[in-house]
């Protein structure tokens, strides 16, 4: 049984313009020690799906799922109180903006010890010792002094390390990292990613890495889930995905990678992710898809089989390779 098993997860927001489906029938599985990357352009529902799992969405969001099973517990059927025993302990998350994700009124030490005391019932001394150990682990120099610092006294990279230390403080089984490096300098980005992968190796936790960056995916992930306009449109292990993407959207994302670009200009996918009011009737990618025909525009495609990367497409690409093998 996998560590995380999501089936048919949907999230609808009540907005002034009516209901908006930000996540649409998403299935996901993550195993122990797995690194799953979730990729997709802005607005594709990557964050919302994971926030739904964590129970962190505002009250305007309606979350439905056939199964939302983490470590044997169905989170969707639990009381808020029971869920808090798991969230923050076995299931942890870090965010894009390390500077604003820490409370400016408390020292980082306080914020780390707090989690330890609440979940593990440690006393002050034990929590302090564990906090020192964690700072060491995530590579924060001079931990004793740093624990007394306030978030605004440290750099973004250091704050993200603090966030990671806090997230792994109770030895989580699954860590969700939502674009953990987007707000950081390029050199720091690589360090933070290395740190996350190293922690995965050392602790055996599962890791979900949300990112826009295909380069990051290639370096860190084992499996990739490609999302578009709230739907999962393809999922494959990392190598086959890069070699033979089945969904036209995945293929376009890969073509947008600088290394693959044949032109000097960085190619981007023309158009934008459809928002609340311009969702097309058939395939959500049809307005931007070079292969779209009338059938695509009318009939929404269902996911194909695992041999086609579960691609939500009427005319998957690279099917010949399957025939050849």
């Amino acid at each position, binding site marked *: 049984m996998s560590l995380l098993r999501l089936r048919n997860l949907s999230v609808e927001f009540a907005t002034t313009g009516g209901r908006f489906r930000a996540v649409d029938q998403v299935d996901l599985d993550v195993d122990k020690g797995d690194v799953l990357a979730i990729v997709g352009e802005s607005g594709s529902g990557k964050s919302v799906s994971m926030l739904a799992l964590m129970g*962190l969405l505002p009250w305007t969001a309606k979350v439905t799922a056939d199964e939302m099973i983490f470590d044997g517990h169905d989170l969707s059927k639990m009381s808020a109180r029971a869920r808090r025993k798991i969230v923050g302990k076995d299931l942890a998350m870090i965010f894009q903006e390390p500077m604003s994700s820490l409370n400016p009124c408390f020292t980082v030490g306080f914020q780390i010890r707090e989690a330890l005391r609440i979940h593990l019932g440690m006393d002050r001394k034990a929590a302090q010792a564990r906090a020192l150990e964690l700072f060491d682990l995530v590579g924060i120099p001079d931990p004793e002094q740093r624990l007394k610092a306030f978030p605004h006294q440290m750099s973004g990279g250091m704050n993200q390390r603090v966030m990671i230390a806090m997230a792994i403080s109770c030895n989580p089984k699954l860590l969700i990292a939502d674009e953990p490096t987007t707000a950081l300098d390029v050199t720091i980005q690589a360090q933070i990613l290395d740190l996350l992968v190293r922690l995965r190796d050392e602790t055996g936790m599962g890791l979900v890495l949300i990112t826009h960056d295909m380069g990051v995916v290639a370096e860190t992930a084992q499996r990739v889930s490609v999302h578009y306009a709230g739907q999962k449109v393809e999922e494959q292990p990392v190598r086959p995905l890069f070699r033979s993407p089945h969904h036209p959207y995945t293929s376009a994302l890969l073509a947008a990678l600088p290394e693959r670009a044949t032109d000097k200009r960085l190619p981007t996918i023309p158009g934008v992710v459809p928002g609340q009011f311009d969702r097309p009737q058939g395939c959500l990618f049809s307005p931007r898809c070079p292969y779209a025909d009338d059938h695509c525009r009318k009939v929404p495609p269902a996911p194909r089989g695992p041999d086609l990367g579960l691609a939500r497409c009427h005319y998957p690409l690279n099917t010949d390779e399957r025939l050849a093998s």
Partner: protein
Amino acid sequence: MLRYVLSRFATFLPTFIGVTLISFAFIRVLPGDPIIVMAGERGMTQERYDELVVQFGFDRPILAQYWDYLTGVLQGDLGNSYVTKRPVWDEFFALFPATLELSICAMIFAVALGLPAGVIAAMNRGKFFDRTLMSTALVGYSMPIFWWALLLIIVFSGNLGWTPVSGRIDLLYYFDDVTGFMLIDSLISGQDGAFTSAVRHLILPTIVLGTIPLAVIARQTRSAMLEVLGEDYIRTARAKGLPPGRINGLHALRNALIPVITVIGLSVGTLLAGAILTETIFSWPGIGKWMVDSIFRRDYPVVQGGLLLIAVMVMVVNLTVDLLYGLINPKIRKR
């Protein structure tokens, strides 16, 4: 932190001089001659009048009068009351505890009810409790003080007879001032029922004076909380699995307090203005009533001195608030 404190103090002096100027000008702009008012219905001879004009220095140029006043003030001399001939300073400090006692009670009342009300409203945003509370606060805020006072007096003193209408304590009780605070002095005196009587006298003025700050604090707390609850660090706190009480009461409130404390500081000014009306209505022997009486008597030194001392108090409170900020929000402290 030291530089922060010094920079706050640096703004103090110009404001102080400005206030002396305004208080000096204010009373002189009002029509009416203090000497005539003093003479009352008996009137006085022209010689006596001229003599007093010289004695009070009204014959000298207005700037010279201001200069005398300012140099006096800077040496700690606020002059003597024209009416009682006693130093303004002494009169002020004899009456000030009464005002302070009332203001402190009103503030405690406003903060003790306003903070939790604002927090609970924010947690129940848009629900029944929130709506009821916020419309009540709006009513409380816009209600004229004298009308609200009369309403309470009619119901609680008139119809129900629960509370007395005026003064600080029943005339039955007599004891010396020790602290000037009736609640404390009545306890010290050890007389049976004195303390209860003092409390009963305080209730209505406290409610009347505290109503506007209460409304302001509740609304500000609610909006500050709502803003803070949308912050990333609150999401982090929830992602840590902290219980809602801890998230709202510690992580959110600590940040929301920063704007709320400003409002509490600013309400002190409003409170002293409100004290003038409240004291007049409830015959509360404090500086509010003293100032009103002195304005009618055109008692220049008292009005000038009283205004100045009130202004200084407001300034000191605002300074304290600025320093409190530093304690609550570490970002300011370290700057």
